[in-house]
């Protein structure tokens, strides 16, 4: 039996070893540490784990392929969910941001998933000069010039996104529904989350602007299982279409129950509805006919993205959702920035990485991503998809089951 003292000594020596950093196996390469901040436990774990896998995949592939000779990428994964909050915890996100900022080897970051965490992290990252790329947080406030003094006090953009904000995705879907589907009346739902509410608000604003009749607006609790009440209410209101701002957590249940209660109605959502869960957990026939958008240009039959999706499934056993792919893109941009710095023979540190990311023209799964001076993507193209079952392909093959309809009309 190990005595208490022996155990303490063992722990102490382990701690020493841990702080020494990478072991001998990695000694040949220089290590570039990339921070990842996601709510990996609790209520938000579902999406966060997929995003984490996206980031792991891109850097594992880069390391395996020796994409940047002489350098190895290492992820410093931090959980911003706590048992105290039961979900993402902005206070922990702020702690993690400080951890990243004070880690000299850490030169760029991916995350967070939730805008609430982003708001707590942004000022700290700005003062610390660390660039992060969020694959999922779409609340426009953080990159809004109006709040620049709050969220980027040091002056330079540090909060980059590989997703467009709600400000474009919602309104362009409004235009698609009005112009392409001839929708004149709509019922709007959101899922209580910052993303869902923002998206639904943006959709509603545009609908009112163009004279589309909003028959009602309701809020779903993503932790609740039963939406039949709300759907019965919608059935009675009898709009032409239903728009849902939210992610798959509520989305799966909505799709299933909407099929029972309002099977014939036109139904659509944002990129939160581009998720394998919609295909596997909600499944067919329930999901058949739903519209969804991706805030990026469509990559027609791009073998690269198909390869990524296949590799992802092979490695992690589950399919990627949209944000897993935008996380992959964020990784590509970071790798691209490192390559640029090496080519320009510049040192790799937080400041040079920030500048390189800001100036990035790296090709990604969603085409070449360029950022404006606040950190948002310059491209505002929104692609529209419809779920149509392709029985010849696997159920969770998103490229087969999400049928590309074309870009949404711009506002």
């Amino acid at each position, binding site marked *: 039996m190990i005595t208490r003292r022996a155990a303490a000594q063992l722990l102490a020596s382990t701690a020493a070893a841990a702080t020494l950093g990478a072991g001998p196996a990695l000694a040949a390469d220089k290590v570039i540490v990339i921070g990842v901040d996601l709510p990996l436990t609790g209520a938000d774990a579902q999406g966060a784990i997929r995003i984490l896998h996206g980031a792991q995949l891109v850097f594992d592939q880069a390391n395996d392929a020796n994409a940047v000779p002489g350098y190895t990428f290492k992820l410093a994964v931090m959980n911003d969910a706590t048992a105290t909050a039961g979900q993402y915890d902005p206070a922990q996100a702020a702690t993690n941001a400080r951890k990243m900022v004070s880690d000299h080897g850490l030169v760029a970051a991916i995350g967070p998933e939730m805008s609430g965490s982003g708001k707590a992290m942004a000022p700290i990252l700005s003062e610390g000069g660390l660039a992060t790329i969020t694959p999922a947080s779409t609340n426009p406030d953080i990159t809004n010039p109006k709040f620049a003094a709050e969220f980027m006090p040091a002056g330079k953009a540090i909060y980059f996104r590989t997703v467009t904000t709600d400000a474009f995705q919602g309104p362009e879907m409004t235009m698609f529904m009005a112009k392409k589907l001839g929708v004149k009346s709509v019922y709007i739902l959101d899922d209580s989350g910052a993303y869902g509410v923002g998206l639904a608000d943006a959709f509603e604003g545009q609908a009112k602007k163009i004279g589309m009749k909003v028959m009602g607006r309701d809020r779903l*609790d993503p932790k609740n299982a039963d939406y039949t*009440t709300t759907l019965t209410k919608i059935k009675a209101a009898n709009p032409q279409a239903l728009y849902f701002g939210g992610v798959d957590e509520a989305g799966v249940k909505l799709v*299933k129950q909407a099929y029972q209660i309002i099977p014939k109605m036109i139904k659509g959502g944002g990129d939160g509805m581009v998720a394998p869960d919609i295909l596997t957990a909600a499944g067919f026939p329930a999901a058949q006919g739903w519209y969804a958008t991706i805030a990026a240009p469509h990559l027609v039959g791009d073998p690269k993205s198909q390869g990524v999706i296949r590799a992802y499934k092979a490695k992690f056993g589950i399919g990627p959702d949209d944000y897993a792919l935008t996380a992959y893109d964020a990784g590509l941009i970071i790798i691209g920035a490192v390559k640029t710095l090496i080519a320009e023979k510049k040192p790799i540190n937080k400041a040079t990485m920030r500048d390189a990311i800001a100036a990035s023209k790296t090709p990604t799964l969603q085409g070449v991503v360029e950022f404006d001076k606040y950190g948002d993507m310059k491209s505002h193209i929104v692609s529209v998809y419809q779920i149509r079952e392709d029985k010849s392909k696997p159920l969770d093959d998103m490229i087969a089951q999400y049928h590309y309809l074309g870009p949404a009309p711009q506002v």
Partner: protein
Amino acid sequence: MSFSSLLLQQTINGMSLGAMYALLALGFTLIYGILELINFAHFNVFMMGSFLALWVLQGFGLTGQTVILTGLPLIGVLVAALIVTMFGTGVLGVVIERVTLRPLRGITGPAAMITTIGVSYVLFNIILLLTSAQTLNFPNPLPQLQWQVHGAIVTLPEVLIWLVAPLLMTGLWAFVQKSRLGKAMRATAQDPEAARMMGVEVDKVIMTAFFLGSALAGAGGMIFGLYYNFTSFLIGFTAGLRAFTAAVLGGIGNVPGAMVGGFAIGLIEAYSGQFIATEWSDVIIFSILVLVLVFRPAGLFGRLAPSKS
């Protein structure tokens, strides 16, 4: 949709929800009645129940909604799954009691409640890790039958839920009222010391309460899965909280009260969603609860056992 059929449809919705809450509320009430313990582990025993049922049904080769069974195979599969699930969660409940709660018996204050919170975290995170936090499609072998009633639609799962839930509840009620062990349970609830002196094996009674309460939660979990056709590690919280509220509304410790409370909460949720807004449902449910308790401090039906204070 006419107003009357809308109202009827929402009533149907509320009754289905309510049946599920009632089933869960029974477990809370049973354990509370005997131990005066708010059992937060119950939330996730329910969740585990839905996963057990999922695995059993998958074991029968059922996936998604593609395989439809009828007649005897359907009944056989469902009954087998129900029995395995209820037994499994029942045993889980007994293990939780035996390992984590029995050592704390007799300690006053919320220590035991906190332990159940810890157990709840453990169950929640085990399923989270096992499923990679995915929402899973729940197999549903039921035929897609539905009936029009006065402009409202009733589906087969709804009819089943209305049949099975009261059946289980009545069974429990009869057990508590008639059986020897049930009488011992009631005696323990009234006064554990006196019951012990009269030769009631209190340990056995408490284990039975945990077995039955958890088995009912397991049944609830399976019915949840069949009704909503999905399950995930997250389902315990909201349903558990509503069910707990239902138990208190009816008068915690009171078996018929839990049933009435469950249906009441289900109907309140449906009507407030229809006539006010779903985002305020929780506010309305809890406001009604506060009002009821302010005027009837022991819930609608009061406690069967007098308070031990």
